[in-house]
């Protein structure tokens, strides 16, 4: 095959890469703006270092030969999950970090990459649907093992982002939205079980839908019965667990997680201060480096989870909309690749990567805005953090590679 220089240029997605560069620069600028506090003085410099390493990793990922990632996916899955198991086994509690030669990294971040590749490969040769469960067994096991390991760390938010990847891939490989709803129906049942009327109505509705699906031969009888029963059981079990098994302090902890304002001095403090920081930015913000909430440490975790509040305080609504616009443009640009890509594996990798980025972005911003519980998910490209920046850049590498490697 003959490839000209122009050809390569045309295939390299300059727009995508440009967006990433702009977001990276914004990240460094924001970290610089909060560097007046001594314990935060070094973050912006280190972030440049992480971006340097990330760029290297991205280039490496991009230039590897065409079928490399497809062939290496199971192997990578294995070696990226392994440290996860090791961490879970060795540490008692909230140990998410793994030390290697003085370098601390979060194995769960990298594990996401392994899960993404392996699931993409598995799903690339099968269509799935709720009427045929057999092809689902292997992907489910492949998803469930790391999911449980990450959940046990405990790192609920990362586990959920892995679950989101799995869900999107199901959707993309044949599940309809109704299928996904049926899959999630027992969970919905748990949520509604605290209000008996709603729960009863929901049960009747769910049973009716399941019955319809079975009559239209979209669902096997056995599966329909299993889901119907599990909807019923989930509601009952959750009520028993809530009222009988959980101790009051455990209940209170769950409620506080869901509604942090219950504890304004503790968990709610972050959310409150974050909203104060964001709102005080107003339309155009207080100006670069002028954020009193961030400079005086009223914002906790401002360099990682609450970086968006730092942005909002200094640049206001205008700045936030610009950055959200950049992130949305980036995500849509990625999805756009799927339109002219026929390879299922690549499509799945793209969709999975976009899912990871989207989930992080939406959950993080919603959390700083007080719309969601505080979970500790960083904001892609903007939050400080070595493992996270490098993971993001590797994902960008995948995206660039998928487009670049078309004809190789």
């Amino acid at each position, binding site marked *: 095959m003959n490839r000209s220089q122009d050809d390569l240029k045309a295939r390299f997605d300059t727009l995508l890469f440009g967006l990433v560069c702009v977001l990276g620069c914004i990240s460094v600028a924001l970290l610089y703006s909060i560097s007046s506090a001594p314990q935060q003085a070094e973050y912006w410099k280190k972030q440049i270092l992480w971006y340097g390493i990330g760029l290297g990793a991205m280039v490496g990922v991009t230039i590897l030969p065409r079928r490399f990632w497809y062939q290496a996916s199971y192997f990578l899955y294995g070696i990226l999950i392994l440290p996860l198991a090791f961490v879970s086994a060795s540490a008692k509690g909230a140990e998410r970090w793994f030390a290697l030669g003085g370098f601390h990294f979060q194995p769960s971040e990298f594990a996401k990459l392994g899960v993404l590749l392996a699931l993409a490969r598995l799903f690339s040769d099968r269509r799935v649907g709720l009427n045929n469960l057999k092809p689902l067994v292997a992907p489910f096991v492949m998803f469930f093992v790391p999911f449980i390991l990450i959940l046990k760390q405990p790192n609920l938010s990362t586990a959920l982002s892995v679950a989101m990847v799995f869900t*999107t891939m199901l*959707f*993309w490989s044949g599940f309809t*939205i109704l299928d996904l709803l049926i899959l999630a129906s027992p969970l919905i049942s748990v949520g509604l079980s605290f209000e008996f009327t709603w729960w009863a109505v929901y049960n009747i509705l769910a049973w009716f839908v399941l019955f319809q699906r079975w009559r239209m031969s979209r669902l096997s009888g056995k599966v329909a019965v299993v889901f119907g029963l599990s909807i019923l059981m989930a509601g009952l079990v959750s009520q028993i667990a809530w009222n009988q098994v959980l101790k009051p302090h455990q209940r209170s902890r769950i409620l506080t997680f869901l509604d942090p304002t219950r504890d304004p*001095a503790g968990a709610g*403090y972050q959310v409150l*201060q974050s*909203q*104060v*920081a*964001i*709102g*005080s*930015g*107003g*339309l155009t913000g207080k100006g670069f480096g002028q954020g*009193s*909430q961030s400079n*005086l*440490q*009223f914002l906790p975790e401002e360099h990682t989870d609450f970086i968006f509040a730092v942005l*909002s*305080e200094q640049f*206001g*609504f205008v700045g*936030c*909309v610009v950055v*959200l616009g950049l*992130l*949305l443009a980036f*995500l*849509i640009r990625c*999805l756009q690749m*799927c*339109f002219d890509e*026929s390879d299922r594996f690549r*499509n799945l990798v793209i*969709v999975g990567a*976009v899912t990871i980025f*989207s989930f992080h972005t*939406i959950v993080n*911003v*919603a959390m700083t*805005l*007080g*719309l969601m519980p505080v979970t500790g998910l960083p904001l892609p490209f903007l939050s400080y953090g070595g493992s996270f920046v490098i993971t993001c850049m590797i994902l960008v590498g995948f995206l660039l590679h998928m487009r670049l490697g078309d004809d190789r």
Partner: protein
Amino acid sequence: MIGASEQSDQIERNERTWILIVLLCVAFLVLAGRLAWLQIVQGDMLLRESEANRLREDPVQAPRGLLVDREGRALVQNRPSRNLVIDPAGVRRHEKELLALLVQFQDAEGNQLFDSTFIKRLFRQARLTPSQRPVLLEDASPEEMALFAENQYRLPGILLEVAMRREYPYGTLAGHVLGYTGEVPEERLESLQTQGYRLGDLIGQMGLEQQYESDLRGKDGIRWIEVDAKGRIVGVPDDMPSTEPVPGKHVRTTIDLDLQKVAEEALPDSLNGSVVALDPRTGEILAMASSPRIDPNIFALPGRRRAREWAKLALDSRRPLNNRAIQGLYEPGSTFKLVTSLAGLLTGQWGAHARFPATCRGGFRFGARYQRCWLDKPPYHGNLDMYGALTQSCDVYYYQLGLLLGMEPINSTAATLGLGSKTGVDLPNEKPGLLVDSAIHERRNKRLGWKWARGLILNLAIGQGQLVTPLQLATMVGGIANGDRVMRPHLMKAVLEPESNRILRESENNVLHALDWSPKIVDAIHGGMDSVVNGMRGTGRAVRLPGIRVGAKTGSAENPHGEKTHALFVCAAPMDSAEIAIGVILENAGGGGAVAGPIAAKLLKQYFHKTGRLPPDSVLAAQKGRR
């Protein structure tokens, strides 16, 4: 070639991609909507909240004005002291750690410095009123400061404040007059908040500190400080207005420190009583002492020690918190004979040289009862005129004079001289005293069913039954010495501007009552007072001074609670144009001339030494020796 199935597959996947894009856009729109709500709709409110986060009002204590004596010598000072206070914003998120740490602190003797209920109460207070800083440790000692400094990094939200404390350099000297300051009591805080008082502010609670509170108190300044999330002060924002503290005004009192010192020394600690010296021309009080004494410094002690000392004072059966000079009520005894004499002269019913038919042989028969004179052994007083009766304080003479006059002229003379009602001295809680006539007697004894009888005049004519304060006695004798007016006694000479000491306001010398006595009457009563001191058998010989004409009257009031009489003494000098008038009362001390007289003498000597009209004691002793 692309197969048909593959093509439909592609179309289906494109559809799903579109769904994903739409979902993404919806999610981002929700986020942008929430952003607009927070930043545009609630922006101003949240901006204020962020300002409230970082800015804190920091009061700057205004120094309280000083009290100085008539010559400008400080009777009360301010001294800097260190307080540890709790910054509500700073401790909010560290209460547990702080509590665990603070209960471990010990003083030099190994006692726990803070107990947990105390700390918890302060924390609760801090949560309820975050704009005020509760005091954890008042007036920290150097050892306590060292302990704090060592642990400062572990004590977020515990701040050091330098505050001014009141200090009374002469201790108990004039303690009752000066009064003391204390924290605003919680029950009064609400009503005082309109005047700008805050929790923990000091307010005058007795004496001049209370009386001149509005002058002495300055106006605290306000400074804005920028704090971080832990309540640590980061800086002073230059865009916020600050107001400077306005120091309180000084009050120059009429007290003469030298004379006050003599009065304090002369008044023994073992006896209850009071000495008041004033200038009868103006009513300026030169010295005022009350025993038992209080040391106002104990009210400036840190918390627990203050409470202990306070309890000691409050429970003391001698009631040291009473300022006996204005709150102690005593029967005037024979000092009242001056009033009875004047009543006789003023009504024109009796002359100074007239003599009564009954001669004093140690007593007087009135109807069925026989009333004794204080001297009921030979040599009896015999038949005396007013001079003799005053000099020897003959009761029989005054029994008859009283019966002759009736109570009405006696009481009206007493009232003109300031007895029976408040003098209006500039001190809080003055007592009015009591004059007795038939109506008052029956009203007061209604429950006992006692009726007025003429025989009671016998007692009242010699000062048994009325109630006066030492200040009233001094005011009275000062008025008699003046002969033309009774001045309202007062303690404030001037209010001074702080620093420059410029006079802002001077006290007016108010005439309490003008006296239109004829010179003859004045001469007669002055002559009587003179002979009390200088006469052969005078009871007031203790205040005899070379070259200075002193007039006096003694009193030994019968006392229902003790064996010994209350000793009373009033005097004024020089009699021609009086500059000083003195009233002395000692409870259960014995005879007025013997016990109270020498105290008055010490004050007189000091006064005339100082003005150069009397040689020092050593010279006097030498002169005496030569004679």
